Protein backbone atom coordinates (compact mmCIF):
# COMPACT_ATOMS: atom_id res chain seq x y z
CA UNK A 1 0.00 0.00 0.00
CA UNK A 2 1.26 3.46 -0.84
CA UNK A 3 1.59 5.52 2.30
CA UNK A 4 3.24 8.68 0.96
CA UNK A 5 2.66 9.98 -2.53
CA UNK A 6 4.35 13.10 -3.85
CA UNK A 7 3.80 14.26 -7.40
CA UNK A 8 5.52 17.04 -9.34
CA UNK A 9 6.21 18.91 -6.15
CA UNK A 10 8.06 22.20 -6.05
CA UNK A 11 8.24 24.31 -2.91
CA UNK A 12 9.71 27.77 -2.43
CA UNK A 13 9.89 29.33 1.05
CA UNK A 14 8.35 32.75 1.29
CA UNK A 15 11.01 35.38 0.64
CA UNK A 16 13.34 32.99 -1.21
CA UNK A 17 13.99 33.18 -4.93
CA UNK A 18 15.15 29.63 -5.38
CA UNK A 19 12.89 26.65 -4.64
CA UNK A 20 14.03 24.42 -1.76
CA UNK A 21 12.38 21.38 -3.33
CA UNK A 22 12.27 20.99 -7.07
CA UNK A 23 10.16 18.61 -9.12
CA UNK A 24 9.95 15.87 -6.50
CA UNK A 25 8.21 12.65 -7.45
CA UNK A 26 8.26 9.87 -4.92
CA UNK A 27 6.08 7.08 -3.68
CA UNK A 28 6.74 5.38 -0.36
CA UNK A 29 5.04 2.12 0.51
CA UNK A 30 3.94 0.91 3.90
CA UNK A 31 6.72 -0.83 5.84
CA UNK A 32 9.63 0.73 3.97
CA UNK A 33 12.72 1.98 5.79
CA UNK A 34 13.90 4.96 3.77
CA UNK A 35 17.21 6.74 4.32
CA UNK A 36 17.33 10.29 2.99
CA UNK A 37 20.77 11.79 2.65
CA UNK A 38 22.52 14.62 0.84
CA UNK A 39 24.72 17.68 1.44
CA UNK A 40 23.59 20.40 3.85
CA UNK A 41 20.95 22.60 2.29
CA UNK A 42 19.85 19.91 -0.20
CA UNK A 43 16.23 20.03 0.98
CA UNK A 44 16.14 17.02 3.32
CA UNK A 45 14.59 18.86 6.25
CA UNK A 46 12.15 20.66 3.99
CA UNK A 47 11.08 17.28 2.66
CA UNK A 48 10.38 16.07 6.22
CA UNK A 49 8.30 19.15 6.96
CA UNK A 50 6.00 18.27 4.09
CA UNK A 51 5.09 14.93 5.54
CA UNK A 52 3.41 16.20 8.68
CA UNK A 53 1.98 19.33 7.13
CA UNK A 54 4.39 21.79 8.78
CA UNK A 55 4.66 22.84 5.17
CA UNK A 56 2.41 24.57 4.15
CA UNK A 57 0.60 25.14 7.47
CA UNK A 58 3.49 26.70 9.48
CA UNK A 59 6.12 27.50 6.90
CA UNK A 60 4.56 29.61 4.24
CA UNK A 61 5.65 29.62 0.66
CA UNK A 62 4.61 28.54 -2.76
CA UNK A 63 3.66 24.88 -3.02
CA UNK A 64 3.08 23.34 -6.43
CA UNK A 65 2.16 19.72 -7.00
CA UNK A 66 0.60 17.15 -4.77
CA UNK A 67 1.45 15.62 -1.37
CA UNK A 68 -0.68 12.81 -0.03
CA UNK A 69 0.00 11.05 3.25
CA UNK A 70 -2.20 8.01 3.85
CA UNK A 71 -4.37 9.34 1.09
CA UNK A 72 -4.86 12.70 2.82
CA UNK A 73 -3.96 15.88 0.98
CA UNK A 74 -1.62 17.68 3.43
CA UNK A 75 -2.89 21.05 2.26
CA UNK A 76 -6.44 20.23 3.25
CA UNK A 77 -5.63 18.27 6.40
CA UNK A 78 -4.95 20.06 9.69
CA UNK A 79 -1.58 19.23 11.27
CA UNK A 80 -3.13 17.80 14.46
CA UNK A 81 -4.90 15.25 12.27
CA UNK A 82 -1.64 14.37 10.48
CA UNK A 83 0.18 14.14 13.81
CA UNK A 84 -1.89 11.06 14.70
CA UNK A 85 -0.30 9.19 11.82
CA UNK A 86 3.05 10.88 11.29
CA UNK A 87 5.47 11.06 14.23
CA UNK A 88 8.34 13.53 13.94
CA UNK A 89 11.66 13.41 15.80
CA UNK A 90 14.17 16.22 15.32
CA UNK A 91 17.91 16.69 15.75
CA UNK A 92 17.59 18.55 18.99
CA UNK A 93 15.24 16.77 21.42
CA UNK A 94 15.31 19.71 23.83
CA UNK A 95 13.07 21.63 21.46
CA UNK A 96 10.52 18.88 21.61
CA UNK A 97 10.45 18.13 25.33
CA UNK A 98 9.08 20.62 27.81
CA UNK A 99 7.14 18.90 30.60
CA UNK A 100 8.27 18.05 34.11
CA UNK A 101 8.52 14.28 33.79
CA UNK A 102 9.11 11.62 31.17
CA UNK A 103 5.73 10.06 31.93
CA UNK A 104 3.89 13.36 31.41
CA UNK A 105 5.84 13.97 28.24
CA UNK A 106 4.71 10.64 26.79
CA UNK A 107 1.09 11.21 27.87
CA UNK A 108 0.91 14.76 26.48
CA UNK A 109 0.01 13.97 22.88
CA UNK A 110 -2.54 11.39 23.98
CA UNK A 111 -4.26 13.88 26.27
CA UNK A 112 -4.45 16.25 23.32
CA UNK A 113 -6.20 13.56 21.33
CA UNK A 114 -8.80 13.39 24.12
CA UNK A 115 -8.33 9.67 24.77
CA UNK A 116 -9.91 8.16 27.92
CA UNK A 117 -7.49 8.13 30.93
CA UNK A 118 -7.43 4.34 31.10
CA UNK A 119 -6.24 4.10 27.55
CA UNK A 120 -3.67 6.85 28.06
CA UNK A 121 -2.27 4.97 31.04
CA UNK A 122 -2.12 1.74 29.12
CA UNK A 123 -0.33 3.26 26.14
CA UNK A 124 2.15 5.13 28.34
CA UNK A 125 3.03 1.89 30.16
CA UNK A 126 3.41 0.03 26.89
CA UNK A 127 5.77 2.59 25.44
CA UNK A 128 7.82 2.91 28.64
CA UNK A 129 8.32 -0.85 28.66
CA UNK A 130 9.10 -1.03 24.94
CA UNK A 131 11.69 1.74 25.11
CA UNK A 132 13.19 0.59 28.42
CA UNK A 133 12.47 3.88 30.18
CA UNK A 134 11.27 2.43 33.52
CA UNK A 135 14.09 4.02 35.53
CA UNK A 136 13.60 7.43 34.01
CA UNK A 137 9.82 7.79 34.19
CA UNK A 138 9.80 10.37 36.99
CA UNK A 139 12.79 12.36 35.81
CA UNK A 140 12.51 15.71 34.12
CA UNK A 141 13.68 15.55 30.49
CA UNK A 142 16.32 18.26 31.06
CA UNK A 143 18.01 16.01 33.65
CA UNK A 144 18.58 13.34 31.02
CA UNK A 145 21.51 12.78 28.65
CA UNK A 146 21.08 13.58 24.96
CA UNK A 147 20.61 9.91 24.10
CA UNK A 148 17.97 9.45 26.79
CA UNK A 149 16.16 12.62 25.69
CA UNK A 150 16.05 11.38 22.14
CA UNK A 151 14.56 8.08 23.38
CA UNK A 152 11.88 10.03 25.24
CA UNK A 153 11.15 12.07 22.10
CA UNK A 154 10.65 8.83 20.18
CA UNK A 155 8.55 7.35 23.01
CA UNK A 156 6.20 10.33 23.08
CA UNK A 157 5.73 10.03 19.33
CA UNK A 158 5.23 6.24 19.53
CA UNK A 159 2.49 6.57 22.10
CA UNK A 160 0.40 8.10 19.32
CA UNK A 161 0.78 4.79 17.46
CA UNK A 162 1.87 6.46 14.25
CA UNK A 163 1.94 4.76 10.86
CA UNK A 164 4.99 6.74 9.80
CA UNK A 165 8.00 7.81 11.81
CA UNK A 166 10.03 10.70 10.38
CA UNK A 167 13.43 11.38 11.98
CA UNK A 168 15.51 14.39 10.96
CA UNK A 169 19.16 13.76 11.90
CA UNK A 170 18.23 12.23 15.25
CA UNK A 171 21.79 11.21 16.13
CA UNK A 172 23.64 14.42 15.22
CA UNK A 173 24.25 15.34 18.86
CA UNK A 174 24.71 11.87 20.31
CA UNK A 175 27.85 9.90 21.05
CA UNK A 176 28.52 6.85 18.85
CA UNK A 177 27.16 4.30 21.30
CA UNK A 178 23.94 6.22 21.94
CA UNK A 179 23.58 6.71 18.18
CA UNK A 180 23.81 2.98 17.53
CA UNK A 181 21.35 2.25 20.31
CA UNK A 182 18.89 4.75 18.85
CA UNK A 183 19.24 3.42 15.31
CA UNK A 184 18.70 -0.12 16.63
CA UNK A 185 15.46 0.99 18.25
CA UNK A 186 14.30 2.59 15.02
CA UNK A 187 15.21 -0.56 13.06
CA UNK A 188 13.24 -2.67 15.55
CA UNK A 189 10.20 -0.39 15.19
CA UNK A 190 10.35 -0.85 11.45
CA UNK A 191 10.88 -4.63 11.48
CA UNK A 192 8.71 -5.67 14.42
CA UNK A 193 6.04 -3.01 14.57
CA UNK A 194 5.94 -2.50 10.78
CA UNK A 195 6.15 1.25 11.14
CA UNK A 196 7.22 3.01 7.97
CA UNK A 197 10.43 4.90 8.75
CA UNK A 198 11.84 7.90 6.93
CA UNK A 199 15.22 8.85 8.36
CA UNK A 200 17.51 11.74 7.45
CA UNK A 201 21.16 11.11 8.21
CA UNK A 202 24.64 12.10 7.00
CA UNK A 203 26.54 9.02 8.09
CA UNK A 204 25.83 6.10 5.84
CA UNK A 205 28.01 3.50 7.54
CA UNK A 206 25.63 2.98 10.44
CA UNK A 207 22.56 2.53 8.26
CA UNK A 208 23.30 0.96 4.89
CA UNK A 209 22.67 -2.59 6.10
CA UNK A 210 19.41 -1.63 7.81
CA UNK A 211 17.44 0.44 5.31
CA UNK A 212 15.45 -0.83 2.35
CA UNK A 213 15.87 2.26 0.23
CA UNK A 214 18.26 5.18 -0.14
CA UNK A 215 17.17 8.55 -1.47
CA UNK A 216 19.96 11.00 -2.27
CA UNK A 217 19.05 14.66 -2.60
CA UNK A 218 21.08 17.52 -4.03
CA UNK A 219 20.04 21.13 -4.56
CA UNK A 220 16.37 20.44 -3.94
CA UNK A 221 16.11 17.45 -6.25
CA UNK A 222 16.05 13.71 -5.77
CA UNK A 223 19.11 12.55 -7.72
CA UNK A 224 19.18 8.90 -6.69
CA UNK A 225 16.47 6.58 -5.35
CA UNK A 226 17.55 2.95 -5.11
CA UNK A 227 18.21 0.00 -2.84
CA UNK A 228 21.45 0.73 -0.92
CA UNK A 229 23.27 -2.08 -2.74
CA UNK A 230 22.75 -0.32 -6.04
CA UNK A 231 22.97 3.20 -4.66
CA UNK A 232 26.46 2.76 -3.18
CA UNK A 233 27.85 1.91 -6.63
CA UNK A 234 26.38 4.96 -8.32
CA UNK A 235 29.02 7.68 -8.77
CA UNK A 236 26.51 10.28 -7.55
CA UNK A 237 26.80 8.89 -4.02
CA UNK A 238 30.34 10.34 -3.82
CA UNK A 239 28.93 13.72 -2.76
CA UNK A 240 28.03 12.24 0.61
CA UNK A 241 31.11 10.01 0.90
CA UNK A 242 31.06 6.22 0.87
CA UNK A 243 31.89 4.02 3.86
CA UNK A 244 35.33 2.40 3.97
CA UNK A 245 34.03 -1.11 3.19
CA UNK A 246 32.68 0.14 -0.13
CA UNK A 247 36.04 1.73 -0.92
CA UNK A 248 37.79 -1.59 -0.23
CA UNK A 249 35.25 -3.45 -2.39
CA UNK A 250 35.63 -1.06 -5.31
CA UNK A 251 39.40 -1.17 -5.23
CA UNK A 252 39.44 -4.98 -5.10
CA UNK A 253 37.00 -5.10 -7.97
CA UNK A 254 39.14 -2.78 -10.04
CA UNK A 255 42.09 -5.17 -9.79
CA UNK A 256 39.96 -8.10 -10.89
CA UNK A 257 38.31 -9.68 -7.84
CA UNK A 258 34.80 -10.73 -8.74
CA UNK A 259 32.56 -10.20 -5.77
CA UNK A 260 28.84 -10.15 -6.46
CA UNK A 261 27.25 -7.52 -4.28
CA UNK A 262 28.92 -4.60 -2.56
CA UNK A 263 29.25 -5.05 1.21
CA UNK A 264 27.05 -2.77 3.31
CA UNK A 265 28.89 -3.48 6.58
CA UNK A 266 32.15 -5.01 7.86
CA UNK A 267 30.18 -8.23 8.46
CA UNK A 268 29.20 -8.31 4.77
CA UNK A 269 32.80 -7.81 3.66
CA UNK A 270 34.05 -10.52 6.00
CA UNK A 271 31.38 -12.93 4.70
CA UNK A 272 32.34 -12.19 1.11
CA UNK A 273 35.97 -13.01 1.75
CA UNK A 274 35.12 -16.13 3.74
CA UNK A 275 32.80 -17.36 0.99
CA UNK A 276 35.46 -16.90 -1.62
CA UNK A 277 37.97 -18.80 0.49
CA UNK A 278 35.45 -21.64 0.92
CA UNK A 279 34.88 -21.68 -2.82
CA UNK A 280 38.39 -21.41 -4.16
CA UNK A 281 40.64 -22.09 -1.20
CA UNK A 282 43.47 -19.98 0.04
CA UNK A 283 45.75 -19.14 -2.80
CA UNK A 284 48.58 -17.81 -0.77
CA UNK A 285 48.98 -21.23 0.83
CA UNK A 286 48.91 -23.05 -2.47
CA UNK A 287 51.35 -20.90 -4.35
Amino acid at each position, binding site marked *: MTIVEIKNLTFTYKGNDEPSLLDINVEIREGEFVLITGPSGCGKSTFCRLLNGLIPHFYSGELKGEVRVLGMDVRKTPTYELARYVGMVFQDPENQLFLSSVEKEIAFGLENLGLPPSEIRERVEQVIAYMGLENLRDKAPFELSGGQQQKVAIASVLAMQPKILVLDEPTANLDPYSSLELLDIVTRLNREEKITVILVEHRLEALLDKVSRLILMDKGRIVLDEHPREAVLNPKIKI*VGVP*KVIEVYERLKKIGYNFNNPPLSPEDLSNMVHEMVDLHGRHSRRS
Partner: protein
Amino acid sequence: MADTVVEVRDLYYSYNSQLVLRGINLEIKKGEIVAIMGENGAGKTTLIKHFNGLLKPKRGIVEVFGVDTREASVAELSRKVGLVFQNPDHQLFAETVEKEVEFALRNFGFEEETIKKRVDWALNLMGLARYRHRSPFTLSIGERKRLAIASILCYDPELIIFDEPTAGQDFLQKERIAELLNLLRTRGKTVVVVTHDVEFVVTRFKRVIVMSRGEIIGDGDIRDVLSNPEILKKAKLVPPQIVKCAWLLSDLGVPKNIIYPEELIEKIKSILGAPYG
Protein backbone atom coordinates in the same frame (compact mmCIF):
# COMPACT_ATOMS: atom_id res chain seq x y z
CA MET B 1 60.70 21.49 27.85
CA ALA B 2 60.75 24.26 25.28
CA ASP B 3 58.60 22.45 22.75
CA THR B 4 55.91 21.39 25.23
CA VAL B 5 52.67 23.29 24.64
CA VAL B 6 50.41 21.66 27.20
CA GLU B 7 51.47 19.79 30.28
CA VAL B 8 48.92 18.35 32.68
CA ARG B 9 50.03 16.68 35.90
CA ASP B 10 47.67 14.82 38.20
CA LEU B 11 44.70 17.04 37.37
CA TYR B 12 41.49 16.71 39.40
CA TYR B 13 38.35 18.71 38.83
CA SER B 14 34.85 18.52 40.28
CA TYR B 15 31.53 20.23 39.62
CA ASN B 16 29.73 20.63 42.93
CA SER B 17 30.75 17.40 44.60
CA GLN B 18 30.97 15.32 41.47
CA LEU B 19 34.46 14.37 40.37
CA VAL B 20 34.70 14.79 36.59
CA LEU B 21 38.46 14.62 36.11
CA ARG B 22 40.46 12.12 38.10
CA GLY B 23 44.21 12.20 37.91
CA ILE B 24 44.81 13.34 34.33
CA ASN B 25 48.41 13.31 33.06
CA LEU B 26 49.35 14.30 29.55
CA GLU B 27 51.76 16.23 27.44
CA ILE B 28 51.18 17.81 24.05
CA LYS B 29 54.15 19.02 22.03
CA LYS B 30 54.38 21.86 19.56
CA GLY B 31 53.00 20.93 16.14
CA GLU B 32 51.04 17.91 17.35
CA ILE B 33 47.49 17.33 16.08
CA VAL B 34 45.69 15.34 18.76
CA ALA B 35 42.17 13.88 18.90
CA ILE B 36 40.35 13.41 22.20
CA MET B 37 37.53 10.85 22.23
CA GLY B 38 35.16 9.28 24.73
CA GLU B 39 31.45 9.03 25.46
CA ASN B 40 29.36 12.01 26.55
CA GLY B 41 30.16 12.85 30.15
CA ALA B 42 33.67 11.36 30.02
CA GLY B 43 35.23 14.74 30.88
CA LYS B 44 36.55 15.78 27.46
CA THR B 45 35.11 19.29 27.43
CA THR B 46 36.04 19.85 31.06
CA LEU B 47 39.62 18.90 30.24
CA ILE B 48 39.99 21.25 27.26
CA LYS B 49 38.51 24.14 29.20
CA HIS B 50 41.61 23.86 31.38
CA PHE B 51 43.84 24.53 28.36
CA ASN B 52 42.79 28.17 28.05
CA GLY B 53 42.26 28.74 31.75
CA LEU B 54 38.45 28.83 31.64
CA LEU B 55 38.66 26.24 34.40
CA LYS B 56 41.42 26.04 36.99
CA PRO B 57 42.59 22.76 38.55
CA LYS B 58 41.12 21.74 41.91
CA ARG B 59 44.24 19.68 42.34
CA GLY B 60 47.28 19.16 40.15
CA ILE B 61 48.88 21.46 37.61
CA VAL B 62 48.10 22.59 34.09
CA GLU B 63 50.85 24.41 32.25
CA VAL B 64 50.24 25.98 28.86
CA PHE B 65 53.28 27.39 27.05
CA GLY B 66 55.11 26.99 30.31
CA VAL B 67 52.64 29.15 32.24
CA ASP B 68 50.73 27.74 35.21
CA THR B 69 47.09 28.46 34.29
CA ARG B 70 46.26 29.39 37.88
CA GLU B 71 48.62 32.33 37.57
CA ALA B 72 47.28 33.65 34.26
CA SER B 73 43.95 35.17 33.26
CA VAL B 74 41.80 33.75 30.47
CA ALA B 75 42.49 36.95 28.52
CA GLU B 76 46.27 36.45 28.70
CA LEU B 77 46.01 32.79 27.72
CA SER B 78 43.51 33.50 24.95
CA ARG B 79 46.11 35.37 22.94
CA LYS B 80 47.94 32.10 22.34
CA VAL B 81 45.11 29.61 22.86
CA GLY B 82 41.93 29.60 20.75
CA LEU B 83 38.97 27.47 21.79
CA VAL B 84 36.14 26.84 19.33
CA PHE B 85 33.06 25.75 21.23
CA GLN B 86 30.82 22.91 20.18
CA ASN B 87 27.76 25.13 20.05
CA PRO B 88 28.63 28.25 18.04
CA ASP B 89 25.78 30.17 19.67
CA HIS B 90 27.75 30.17 22.92
CA GLN B 91 30.39 32.17 21.15
CA LEU B 92 28.67 34.44 18.59
CA PHE B 93 27.11 37.75 19.56
CA ALA B 94 28.08 40.52 17.10
CA GLU B 95 25.70 42.26 14.69
CA THR B 96 27.44 41.11 11.54
CA VAL B 97 29.67 38.29 10.45
CA GLU B 98 32.50 40.76 9.85
CA LYS B 99 32.22 42.37 13.28
CA GLU B 100 32.19 38.94 14.86
CA VAL B 101 35.58 38.16 13.37
CA GLU B 102 36.97 41.63 14.11
CA PHE B 103 36.06 41.48 17.76
CA ALA B 104 39.02 39.54 19.14
CA LEU B 105 41.44 41.37 16.84
CA ARG B 106 40.33 44.73 18.24
CA ASN B 107 40.51 43.39 21.75
CA PHE B 108 44.08 42.33 21.22
CA GLY B 109 44.85 45.80 19.84
CA PHE B 110 45.86 44.95 16.30
CA GLU B 111 46.34 47.78 13.75
CA GLU B 112 43.35 48.64 11.53
CA GLU B 113 45.13 47.44 8.42
CA THR B 114 46.07 44.11 9.99
CA ILE B 115 42.50 43.69 11.19
CA LYS B 116 41.16 44.13 7.70
CA LYS B 117 43.63 41.66 6.22
CA ARG B 118 43.06 39.05 8.89
CA VAL B 119 39.27 39.31 8.63
CA ASP B 120 39.39 38.86 4.85
CA TRP B 121 41.75 35.92 5.20
CA ALA B 122 39.63 34.14 7.82
CA LEU B 123 36.32 34.73 6.03
CA ASN B 124 37.73 33.49 2.73
CA LEU B 125 39.31 30.50 4.38
CA MET B 126 36.00 29.42 5.90
CA GLY B 127 33.95 30.23 2.79
CA LEU B 128 32.01 33.03 4.49
CA ALA B 129 33.13 36.13 2.59
CA ARG B 130 29.80 36.64 0.86
CA TYR B 131 28.01 36.75 4.22
CA ARG B 132 30.19 39.45 5.79
CA HIS B 133 27.40 41.98 6.26
CA ARG B 134 24.76 39.50 7.42
CA SER B 135 23.80 38.81 11.01
CA PRO B 136 25.37 35.59 12.31
CA PHE B 137 21.93 34.43 13.35
CA THR B 138 20.66 34.32 9.77
CA LEU B 139 23.29 31.69 8.93
CA SER B 140 22.70 27.95 9.00
CA ILE B 141 24.12 26.00 11.91
CA GLY B 142 26.95 24.68 9.74
CA GLU B 143 27.83 28.22 8.65
CA ARG B 144 27.71 29.49 12.23
CA LYS B 145 30.11 26.72 13.18
CA ARG B 146 32.49 27.89 10.47
CA LEU B 147 32.11 31.49 11.64
CA ALA B 148 33.05 30.44 15.16
CA ILE B 149 36.19 28.87 13.70
CA ALA B 150 36.99 31.99 11.62
CA SER B 151 36.69 34.25 14.66
CA ILE B 152 39.35 32.20 16.44
CA LEU B 153 41.71 31.58 13.51
CA CYS B 154 41.82 35.30 12.61
CA TYR B 155 44.09 36.19 15.53
CA ASP B 156 46.44 33.33 14.76
CA PRO B 157 46.67 31.52 18.11
CA GLU B 158 49.42 28.93 18.57
CA LEU B 159 47.21 26.28 20.15
CA ILE B 160 43.76 25.74 18.68
CA ILE B 161 41.15 23.56 20.32
CA PHE B 162 38.02 22.40 18.53
CA ASP B 163 35.11 20.88 20.44
CA GLU B 164 33.16 18.57 18.12
CA PRO B 165 33.81 20.41 14.86
CA THR B 166 32.33 17.62 12.71
CA ALA B 167 29.11 17.00 14.65
CA GLY B 168 26.15 17.42 12.31
CA GLN B 169 28.40 18.41 9.40
CA ASP B 170 27.99 16.76 6.03
CA PHE B 171 30.73 14.97 4.12
CA LEU B 172 31.94 18.04 2.21
CA GLN B 173 32.15 20.19 5.34
CA LYS B 174 34.09 17.44 7.08
CA GLU B 175 36.51 17.37 4.18
CA ARG B 176 36.91 21.13 4.57
CA ILE B 177 37.67 20.78 8.26
CA ALA B 178 40.22 18.10 7.38
CA GLU B 179 41.82 20.51 4.90
CA LEU B 180 41.90 23.14 7.61
CA LEU B 181 43.72 20.73 9.93
CA ASN B 182 46.28 20.17 7.18
CA LEU B 183 46.73 23.90 6.76
CA LEU B 184 47.25 24.36 10.50
CA ARG B 185 49.67 21.45 10.46
CA THR B 186 51.80 23.11 7.77
CA ARG B 187 51.84 26.34 9.79
CA GLY B 188 53.27 24.46 12.75
CA LYS B 189 50.22 25.00 14.96
CA THR B 190 49.29 22.70 17.78
CA VAL B 191 45.73 21.41 17.46
CA VAL B 192 43.44 19.51 19.81
CA VAL B 193 40.15 18.17 18.46
CA VAL B 194 37.42 16.67 20.63
CA THR B 195 35.31 14.39 18.48
CA HIS B 196 33.06 11.35 18.39
CA ASP B 197 33.82 10.66 14.78
CA VAL B 198 36.03 7.59 14.78
CA GLU B 199 36.31 7.39 10.96
CA PHE B 200 37.45 11.01 10.86
CA VAL B 201 40.10 10.35 13.51
CA VAL B 202 41.41 7.20 11.92
CA THR B 203 41.96 8.92 8.54
CA ARG B 204 43.25 12.29 9.76
CA PHE B 205 45.13 11.85 13.04
CA LYS B 206 48.19 10.10 14.39
CA ARG B 207 47.63 10.46 18.11
CA VAL B 208 44.41 9.92 20.00
CA ILE B 209 43.57 10.27 23.68
CA VAL B 210 40.58 8.24 24.89
CA MET B 211 38.76 9.22 28.07
CA SER B 212 36.24 7.40 30.21
CA ARG B 213 34.71 8.53 33.49
CA GLY B 214 37.17 11.32 34.05
CA GLU B 215 40.29 9.31 33.32
CA ILE B 216 42.55 8.80 30.34
CA ILE B 217 42.30 5.13 29.39
CA GLY B 218 44.28 5.29 26.16
CA ASP B 219 46.84 7.71 24.73
CA GLY B 220 49.04 7.00 21.77
CA ASP B 221 49.20 6.02 18.13
CA ILE B 222 45.72 5.56 16.60
CA ARG B 223 46.72 2.11 15.40
CA ASP B 224 47.29 0.86 18.93
CA VAL B 225 44.46 2.74 20.62
CA LEU B 226 41.62 2.39 18.10
CA SER B 227 42.23 -1.30 17.50
CA ASN B 228 42.31 -2.12 21.21
CA PRO B 229 38.98 -3.83 22.01
CA GLU B 230 39.23 -3.16 25.77
CA ILE B 231 39.74 0.58 25.33
CA LEU B 232 36.98 0.85 22.73
CA LYS B 233 34.57 -1.11 24.88
CA LYS B 234 35.31 0.84 28.03
CA ALA B 235 34.88 4.17 26.22
CA LYS B 236 31.78 2.89 24.39
CA LEU B 237 33.40 3.63 21.04
CA VAL B 238 32.47 1.82 17.87
CA PRO B 239 35.58 0.42 16.11
CA PRO B 240 36.47 1.96 12.74
CA GLN B 241 35.07 -0.08 9.82
CA ILE B 242 38.48 -1.35 8.70
CA VAL B 243 39.40 -2.45 12.23
CA LYS B 244 36.09 -4.27 12.50
CA CYS B 245 36.80 -6.02 9.18
CA ALA B 246 40.25 -7.03 10.43
CA TRP B 247 38.76 -8.54 13.59
CA LEU B 248 36.20 -10.49 11.57
CA LEU B 249 38.92 -11.77 9.24
CA SER B 250 41.44 -12.62 11.95
CA ASP B 251 40.71 -16.36 11.55
CA LEU B 252 42.22 -16.04 8.07
CA GLY B 253 45.38 -14.52 9.49
CA VAL B 254 44.57 -10.81 9.18
CA PRO B 255 46.27 -8.90 12.02
CA LYS B 256 43.79 -7.24 14.37
CA ASN B 257 45.48 -3.85 14.28
CA ILE B 258 44.92 -2.99 10.63
CA ILE B 259 43.40 0.47 10.24
CA TYR B 260 43.77 1.63 6.62
CA PRO B 261 41.91 0.39 3.50
CA GLU B 262 45.14 -0.26 1.61
CA GLU B 263 46.43 -2.54 4.38
CA LEU B 264 43.21 -4.52 4.36
CA ILE B 265 43.28 -4.79 0.56
CA GLU B 266 46.86 -6.18 0.67
CA LYS B 267 45.84 -8.79 3.25
CA ILE B 268 42.76 -9.85 1.30
CA LYS B 269 44.86 -10.13 -1.85
CA SER B 270 47.32 -12.40 -0.11
CA ILE B 271 44.50 -14.56 1.29
CA LEU B 272 42.75 -14.95 -2.05
CA GLY B 273 45.78 -15.01 -4.31
CA ALA B 274 45.57 -13.77 -7.90
CA PRO B 275 42.01 -12.97 -8.94
CA TYR B 276 40.10 -15.48 -11.07
CA GLY B 277 39.34 -14.21 -14.55
